[in-house]
């Protein structure tokens, strides 16, 4: 078992024939992801990477039965692409693109919610169910199959965390990079219950950062609903106030959104909080042995 995606998931790619889309779609296919086609306007009817290209998401869904879309369109077109996917009946859109305007994402997410479509991202590495299905840009080889679920706002910390977990002899069920933008799709509070319900996931690693209060909300949910052990790291303990640290959402505004308050809330919820990402692997081992 796993969450969100598995080897049977039918995936299309929006922005299929572009440079980024092509490169990563090919990597996903090599990993074993069931990519059944893609969408690039005015290239409908062509074949790309051995798969059919469609002009619209609606056509692609009708012809292939795809339920998940991986989105690589340029930032200015992300909002449009997400809304198109939602209306075409896609169930989950994984938005990799970085730099989408916040206003567009606000409208797109509201529209997706109205149509019952889940979104992941934007500005994220994507989602991977180890050794089955990779929808995103993460290096597949570090995700060995196992029993740890991983949720992270940061791409490279996802890799760091997964790598340490695997080096300790464990592995990953599913890893979800939720992105570090001010408005994101699925977050801790939607994904934690999925891991709780997944029989194969024994322990959850959650990686957060400064800015916003999603980690505080997660702490509340963990206290009330999550029985599986959770390890957490919050990046940005040493970040100065009022400065955006790379991710658009990673900013401490005034006294809100600090790493300290998030770490304290998670600790109070019974989470094993580590002060350095270098300790994630060891902490998982400690909780499981």
């Amino acid at each position, binding site marked *: 078992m796993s969450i969100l995606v598995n080897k049977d998931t039918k995936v299309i790619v929006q922005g299929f024939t572009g440079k980024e889309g092509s490169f990563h779609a090919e990597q996903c296919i090599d990993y074993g992801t069931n990519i059944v086609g893609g969408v690039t306007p005015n290239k409908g009817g062509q074949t790309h990477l051995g798969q059919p290209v469609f002009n619209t998401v609606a056509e692609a869904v009708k012809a292939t039965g795809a339920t998940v879309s991986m989105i690589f369109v340029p930032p200015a077109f992300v909002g449009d692409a997400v809304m198109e996917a939602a209306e075409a009946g896609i169930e989950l859109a994984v938005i990799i693109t970085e730099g*989408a305007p916040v206003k567009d994402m606000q409208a797109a997410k509201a529209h997706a919610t109205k149509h019952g479509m889940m979104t992941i991202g934007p500005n994220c590495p994507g989602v991977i169910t180890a050794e089955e299905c990779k929808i995103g840009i993460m290096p597949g080889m570090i995700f060995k199959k196992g029993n740890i679920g991983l949720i992270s706002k940061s791409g490279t910390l996802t890799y760091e965390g997964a790598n340490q977990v695997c080096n300790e002899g464990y592995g990953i069920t599913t890893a979800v990079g939720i992105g570090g933008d001010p408005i994101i799709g699925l977050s801790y509070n939607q994904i934690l219950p999925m891991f709780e319900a997944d029989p194969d996931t024994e322990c959850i690693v959650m990686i957060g950062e400064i800015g916003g209060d999603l980690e505080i909300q997660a702490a509340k949910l963990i206290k009330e609903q999550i029985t599986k052990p959770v390890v957490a790291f919050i990046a*940005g303990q*040493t970040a100065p106030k009022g400065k955006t640290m790379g991710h658009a959402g*990673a900013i401490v505004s005034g006294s809100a959104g600090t790493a300290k308050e998030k770490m304290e809330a998670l600790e109070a919820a019974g989470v094993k909080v580590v002060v350095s990402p270098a300790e994630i692997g060891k902490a998982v081992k400690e909780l499981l042995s």
Partner: protein
Amino acid sequence: MNIHEYQAKQIFAKYDVPVPKGIMVESVKDAVIAAQELGGPVWVVKAQIHAGGRGLGGGVKLAKNLDEVEALANEILGMTLVTHQTGPEGKLVQKLYIEDGADIQSELYLSVVLDRKLEMPLIMASTEGGMNIEDVAENTPELIVTVPVDPAIGFQGFHGRELAFGLGITDKAEQKNIITFAQKLFKLYMELDAEMIEINPLVKTGKGEFIALDGKMGFDNSALGRQPEIAAMRDLTEEDPDEVEAAKYGLSYVALDGEIGCMVNGAGLAMGTMDTINHMGGTPANFLDVGGSANAETVAKGFEIILKNPNVKAIFVNIFGGIVRCDRIANGIIEATKITDVNVPVIVRLDGTNAPEAAEILKNANIANLIVGDDLGDGAAKAVAAAKGN
């Protein structure tokens, strides 16, 4: 991206949001001419820097005649203004805004920000104008009115009524004035891809009209491509020159006051690396994310920027290659040592895509001062030791 008060007020005026008349100047002579043009009888001389708290820092003063305008312009222009938002080093005042004095009956607070929890814009208002709004929120939260506005329906009448009644405004003409004011502000917030607008104080005049006495605006950097007029308002002299230089090469850089230079891929890992150094008893000299398309040139540039900082005693390169290939970073490090004089120990930890190839490249290059870190913890420990001269 942030803009100056005078620029925010230009935007307000364009959207019919009432502002006092004012003129931006860059010399004492022009300040006096501007004051003559505005006519008086009183003027406010205001320092234009990208930071709040200007009044308390001595950057906003009232003049009652033209001689006072001249004296104040002389005093404020060219001064280094220190406020709670500038840091102890302060900011050099290069521009002044000469403004008509306003007839102030009471001071309020009004802002529009993105509420990340509700995922929609939020109008915030308070009768406690002129104060630090965070203090108001902390001490008297009941004096803050919040009205979320779903852009799908836009600013409706009820939003306006919630705002007006929330502020305790009972006069019908005044209600109409504040509602129209907020409605226009919301319109420009949406149309211009603003991230935040803050008016503190918003002033009620003796006639029951509302005027933006101050104006602070920030914009969504991701939307500047479709807002050319806003993008043109960027004032690079208000930004850290190293951050601006780094951004040209796709590097995200923030200077800090520690001793260990950091070069990392990914914002999260970059923060995590700083945290690890700190946890091990060292101090990070900077945040630096080399991004997803790092190559020899960008890495070399990164070294150059890090080494400009005289406090740097060691550099920790921490890369977990996903899209970024470690062999490219290794070549970048070698390239950097040729271009720039890297005179401090460099601790390198490369993991992920093409890490074995990278290790081979570095080994063969035989660079003095280069220390290999096996993993994040090991690399950070070695960097901390190296910075302490061990």
